Structure formats: C-alpha cells, structure tokens
C-alpha cells in the first residue's frame, strides 16, 4: 500500500467508531501543543516530573537500562541507546532513515480499524522505533516513556518494534501523566514484529489519572519459534481505557503470553482484552489476567483465542476480585476453533475475598486489614516467567511500588 492509499483509507475511517469502549470525542483534545527541545541527558528533565517517571517504571538516571526514549506530549525529548545490536529512535527519524520501514507500518494493524488508528495516521506525533539486530541478545531492558504534561493534549504515537531473527529484546515502557494534568487523550499504535527464533518481552506500566482517556492499538506478528511476552500493570485510576492487543502467531511453534494485572479504583472504566490468533502449526498462547475492582470502577476483562492450525494450544485464565458493591467486573473469555487437532481452554472466576481466608490469616496474628492486604497482594501476584532475572526482579519491584501506592 502506498502512503497515498494509507492516507485515503485513514480519511475514510476518520469517524468510524471503535467496536468496543465508549466513544471518545477526539476533537476535544488539541494537537497544537508546545514543542519541547531535546535534552542531552535524562538528568536534565525537570525534577518535578521525575516521580511521575518512576511511577511508570522509568528510571530517570537511565541506570541499568540498555537505552532510553522519552516523549513529552508531542515532542521526543530524549532517545539514546547504549548497546551494540540495538536501535532506538523516534518513528519519524526511523522512517526518514529506512525506506524499508514502510513494509512494517500498518501491517499488523489496519489503519482503518477505527477512528483512533485513522487519527494517529493523519496526525501523528512520533512514537518510538526499537529494533534488535539479528542474533543480538541484550538482556538489559530498553526503556521507553510516553509522558503527558499538558492539559487537553492529544498524544498520537505510532511505535514499531522489531526483533530480527534469533535476537532478544526486552522493553520496559511506561505511560505516565503529570498529576496537574486534568484531561488528555493518548492514542498509541504499537506494531511488534518477532522474527524467526526471536524473543520480545514487553513490560508496560500505565500510570494515568482520573481525567485521561486512553485508546492503545497493539498487534504482534510472531514467526517460527518466536516468543512474545507481555506484562501489563495498571494500578492507578483512568477515566476510560479500551484496548485489545492481538498476537498473530503465524510461524510454527510461535508463542504469545499476555499477563495483565489491574487494580481499578475510583470511577475508572476499563475494557481490556488480549487476543491470540494461532495460525502457525504448534503455536501456543497463554492469557492471564487478574482484576481487582473497587469504588465505582467498571472493568470488562476479555480474552480470546482463535485456533486455526494443527496442534495449537491456548489457555485463558481470568480472575476478578470485587472489593465494592458499586464496582463491576465482566469477564468474557472466548475460544474459537476451526479444526480438530487443537486444545483451547479457559477458566474464569470472579468473587469477593473469602472470610475464611481472612480468618486463617488472623489466626496467624494479622489484623483484619493486614490480612486483607496480604490476600490482595497474593491475588495480584502472578509469577512472571520468561524475563531475565534482573528484569524479573525489577518488574516485581515496580509492581510492589505501585501496589504500595494504592493500598
């Protein structure tokens, strides 16, 4: 598809409502925001914002990160990589640098999927490009942060992530918003390409606020023996978030894992799903979600596995915990099989904290509050597998930190 055709398609879809989630009035949010100058180092980033970065798992010193990318509102203010074999830059720069990149744009996600994809194409404000070269295996994570600091801003990013053959790429990405921002819209397109024998782990922390609307659109194309692992953590309120990342396991023995941990509080409205399309023979997927809903939060937790090839295996495990009578959780697991030699399954459970569990812990000396907190912690505690040790520890730390804040 030529650039002209892409734009045409986007124009057509400009007002196309999304299949899920409440409709967002895009025009309420401005693209005419201030531009920020690039920084020489992350240290130069204003002190007042650093906590918001930390809250999204971003290390402002860049220590123990293979590279860092920081976009403020609609400007890329920092982008640097420390290791050979990795590339990191704004998508805009990458498009100028590589002609071949057009083969990756809107290939995993149709540009006319809905008005949000269309709007990102028509009014793009950068995003990141991360690529690991063939055979390169950097276990230290690259960090990328999309940060909102201005009221009413519309952040339209298009991210492209490519792991070339037999390479390994670990990413921590944090989306954060400065606490003084009352309303903003984040539209984020992320297209992942996991080539033969490659592996991407993607740990994402969302740290939004009660006035932020969020519509990410993500898809992964995973080739033979490729592995994609996503860990998603959302602990803070958000006005409205809808996403349904989709992994296409196109290669033989391709693997996709989605783990989502959500603590929905306040007036948060979330429609969060993960989908795996198993097209390669022997491909596998696992979708695990833990959702806690309290206050007036409304959460739809979806999981969908579509088996289209022989010997594929997919499992969905969705657990919800209700902490308030005004909260709502809908758990919607779906399975679809188109042939007989495969194995798809799901388990879903939604409930409240069992009195018996609280009493058991109290019998070991905890107060009722302490017992409740131990149970909540345990509920959200999914063992993350597939991450390098240091990153797994780091992720655990980030998780503990964000939990600390809400409890």
């Amino acid at each position, binding site marked *: 598809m030529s650039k002209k055709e892409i734009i045409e398609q986007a124009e057509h879809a400009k007002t196309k409502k999304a299949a899920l989630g409440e409709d967002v009035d895009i025009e309420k949010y401005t693209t005419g925001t201030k531009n920020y100058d690039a920084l020489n180092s992350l240290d130069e980033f204003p002190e007042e914002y650093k906590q918001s970065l930390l809250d999204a798992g971003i290390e402002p010193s860049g220590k123990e990160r293979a590279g860092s990318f920081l976009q403020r509102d609609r400007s890329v203010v920092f982008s640097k990589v420390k290791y050979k074999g990795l590339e990191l830059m704004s998508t805009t720069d990458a498009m100028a640098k590589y002609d071949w990149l057009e083969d990756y744009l809107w290939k995993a996600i149709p540009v006319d999927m809905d008005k949000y994809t269309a709007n990102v194409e028509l009014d793009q404000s950068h995003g990141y490009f991360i690529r690991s070269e063939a055979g390169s295996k950097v276990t230290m994570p690259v960090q990328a942060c999309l940060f909102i600091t201005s009221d009413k801003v519309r952040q339209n990013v298009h991210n492209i992530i490519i792991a070339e053959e037999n390479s390994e790429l670990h990413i921590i990405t944090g989306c954060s918003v400065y606490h003084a921002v009352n309303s903003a819209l984040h539209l984020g397109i992320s297209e992942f390409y996991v080539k033969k024998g490659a592996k991407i782990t993607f740990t994402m922390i969302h740290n939004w606020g009660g006035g932020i609307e969020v519509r990410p659109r993500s898809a992964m194309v995973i080739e033979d023996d490729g592995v994609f692992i996503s860990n998603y953590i959302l602990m803070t309120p958000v006005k409205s978030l809808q996403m349904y990342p989709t992994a296409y396991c196109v290669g033989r023995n391709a693997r996709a894992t989605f783990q989502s941990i959500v603590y929905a509080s306040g007036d948060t409205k979330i429609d969060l799903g993960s989908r795996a399309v198993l097209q390669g023979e022997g491909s596998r997927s696992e979708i695990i979600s833990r959702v806690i809903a309290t206050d007036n939060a409304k959460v739809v937790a979806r999981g969908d596995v579509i088996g289209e090839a022989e010997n594929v295996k997919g499992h969905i495990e969705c657990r919800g915990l209700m902490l308030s009578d005004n909260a709502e959780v809908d758990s919607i697991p779906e399975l679809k099989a188109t042939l007989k030699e495969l194995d798809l399954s799901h388990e879903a459970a939604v409930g409240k904290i069992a009195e018996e569990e609280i*009493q058991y*812990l109290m*019998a*070991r*000396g905890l*107060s009722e509050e302490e017992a409740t907190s*131990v149970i909540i912690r345990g*509920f959200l505690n999914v063992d993350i597998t597939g991450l390098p040790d240091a990153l797994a520890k780091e992720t655990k730390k980030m998780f503990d930190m964000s939990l600390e804040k809400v409890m």
Partner: protein
Amino acid sequence: MLEIKDLTVEVEGKEIIRDLNLNIERGAVHVLFGPNGCGKTTLLMAILGFPNYKVKKGSITFRGVDITDLPTNERVKLGMGMSFQHPPEIRGVKLGDMVNIARGRKEEKIDEDVIELGKRLNISVDFLNRDVNLGFSGGEVKRSEILQMLAQSPEFIMLDEPDSGVDVENIELIGDIINELMDRNKMPSKRERAGLIITHLGFILRYINADRAHVMLDGRIACTGMLDEVTKHVMEEGFERCVELCGGKGV
C-alpha cells in the same frame, strides 16, 4: 491457662456446644475425643474467636484475661495458636509467606531461617514456594500447619486432627515437633506450655505423651479422665460405651 465456663456456642443459628466446662493448666496437654460432628472443631474455633462461632452463654478466660469478646488476632497475640483440620487455600500466598507471617515478620523473602524450619518437617524449598494449601495432599496440609505452629511457637496450641492423612514416616516427625512445642521433653515442673489435641483415631498419641483426655458427645464433655484410661476405653469399646462406663463424669 485456659478456663472455659458454661460455654454455649451457636453456628448458623444452630446450637452446637452446650454448657461446656474445661480447664487446662499451664504445662498440661489434653486430648479431645469424640465422634464426627460432635462439635470438636467448633469448640476450637470458638476458643480462637472466629466470628461465625457465636458464644451465646458462658466465658473463655486465657492467661487470666477474659477473651470471650476479643478478635482472633488479639487472642493470638496473647499466645494461642491453632493447627487447622481443613485450612483454606489462598492464591498467591506461599507457604513460606505464611511461615513469615506466623513468625510475626513482615519480610517477604523466604530466607535461610524459613528454609531451616521447613527442613525439620521434610518440607522442601519448592514446597515453601507453593500457594498455601492449594493442591496439598491431606498429609501435606498437616505438615504445613505444624510448620506454621513451629514458626509461631505459641504458649497454648490447639491441634485439630494433626494426624489424619499423614503417612507413617511423617507422623513420628510431627509427633516429635508437637512434643517440643508443648514442652513435653521437659520435666513436668519445668513445663510452661499447654495444648489441646483433637484426634479421631488416636494415631498421634503413640508419639505424644498427654495428661488428660475428654470425650465429647453432642456438644458436651461427657467423660473426662487420665489419658491412658480414656484412650483404652475409647479404642476398645467406642465412644458411647466409654461414656457409659464413666457415667458422664471421670473414668
């Protein structure tokens, strides 16, 4: 150490324990026999203060404090502990975490101390890392409960059928640890701790030396006596006959 007077307990609106009296002195270990469903577990839950077990009448005094209306964790702080017959599963909370909690430590790490305690009950590091009670076999549940008691080391321990489902190799091990936890290896005058053991089949009594035994029938203590005599009657002639023999009082 524990003094129960005229205790009546209701569960879900049903009276289960009726006018029950029981005294356990510091340094003593008592055994409670009784057929299934007679109210043994209910009594322990009421002593521990679980909210579903409502005290309708009477009082429970522990170490001189009237605990009848205290919440469970306050009773635990005063020094009581319980090994459960059917403890609940808690997802994401590891046995090792429970050991730390029982030790009164906030630490989340399963450290050397926890591992050492585990070893004493033939419990591996892998097992310490499993979600507590989730998919545990009957015997594993018991070892996990005793491990938590070992970690908590309460002055007064209640054991609800610590022997059911435990295999031969481990029952002796559990017996040894219970003896230690209840000061049974010390001279009688040096014993500081006390305990109450429920056993249905009495296996554990081959490994533990207790002092007195009671037979519970239909929510009351129907017979009380020296352990050996009561055990002998119960094992040889059954609960009902034992009660008949002791005429509703001592053997």
